[in-house]
């Protein structure tokens, strides 16, 4: 039972490390790295769902009958693209924030805004 699911649990731990970094870190870039880890871990979770014991990669070859599930792969390909797109936009924002505020630390930005 536990061995059946250990994969998922490690992945959950990964997600949470990323999630924690997003919430708790004050540096905008660090937050984004956390977000990145969070998302990547969700990708691992999906791909784990598609794993079939004894199967091979879903590229049709004569004589092979057991393949891993291709659908999660497709979904995650899309999700990876979405992830990098979000990251690019976020980093562009960070660059502009640095220009406008002179810092990329959340606390300092808040202080400047309150003045």
């Amino acid at each position, binding site marked *: 039972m536990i061995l*059946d699911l250990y994969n998922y649990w490690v992945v959950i731990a990964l997600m949470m490390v990323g999630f*924690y970094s997003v919430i708790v870190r004050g540096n905008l870039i660090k937050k984004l790295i956390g977000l990145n880890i969070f998302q990547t871990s969700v990708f691992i979770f999906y791909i784990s769902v598609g794993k079939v014991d004894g199967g091979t990669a879903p590229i049709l070859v004569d004589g092979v009958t057991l393949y891993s599930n291709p659908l999660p792969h497709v979904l995650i390909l899309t999700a*990876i693209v979405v992830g990098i*797109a*979000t990251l690019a936009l976020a980093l*562009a924002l960070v660059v502009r924030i640095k220009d406008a505020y002179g810092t990329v630390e959340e606390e300092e930005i808040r202080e400047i805004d309150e003045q």
Partner: protein
Amino acid sequence: MIDFAFVVDIVVLALLLVTAVAIARMKDLFAIVMLSGIYGLLSAAFFVSLDAVDVAFTEAAVGAGISPLLFLSVLKLTGRYENGSHSHAIFALVLVVVTGLALVVGTLDMPAFGDPDSPASSHVAVRYLEESGREIDIPNVVTSVLASYRGYDTFGEAVVIFTAAVGVLSLLGLLSGPREGGESPVRMGDHLVLRLVSEMLIPLILLFALYVQFHGEYGPGGGFQAGVIFAAAIILHSMLFGLQPAQRVARPPVLRALAALGVLVYGSVGVVSMLSGGTFLDYSVLSEDPVSGQHLGIIVIELGVGVTVASTMILIFFAFTSRSDAAHPETSR
């Protein structure tokens, strides 16, 4: 008997966890970015062990390639060290633990890992594996699903990339053509070895990109991966020889137009299939023979994706690096 794959899984997962924790604890952003690249690479390795070769390919290109690159070019502008400030640490910890526990509870009723009879592997996916050979007739099922069965999602994906391009342009502006003023400081292109290697390497990379673009039906790869690799070649060139020469080859206004064109090409396939009597993106009507119609459709839309992805990646990289070139070197500690 100890399964070899099982050991690999455990080792890779353990490494991933160590890397993630290290990232969370460190303060040197440069090191963190490097580690996040390693994290991407490790997860790509893990994807291979889970038989997801296409995903592994993509994750390697993105997680270990493009995203560290973007991070680094931004770090150059914003500084290398974080001041380590934490906010609501307790609150965050509680939230994360609760979320994590909820997820663990959620997995308890899940089908076992690798179960071939799990619902995920026994419902919709079965058709893709069993029928795509006949219906679409290309070996890589992932490509079949990606480009045809769920081709509309992929259209959305191309649009997401395009959106990011437009978003970054709206934020950072488009650098049109070589700027006035002198060449930026010393470039790595001055190193003989690097130059020679790269002069050999870059054409090879471009060639590889083309291969990946048009070979996606047979092995792992496709428009997105090809686009990223193509972009990598240009980016490498610009890193070695400076931004201006690269921009003379890939002029930003042209890139912008190409990014839009890629999406339009993709969408046009849908429009053409509507005009030919099918539904949106129904490639079967594109040719007299449905299967060759599928082939035609997939080739064209993969091309659209490739063009959009490549031009977007290059554009975004230009947008970041042209900023850091403009900034004084001192600001990037």
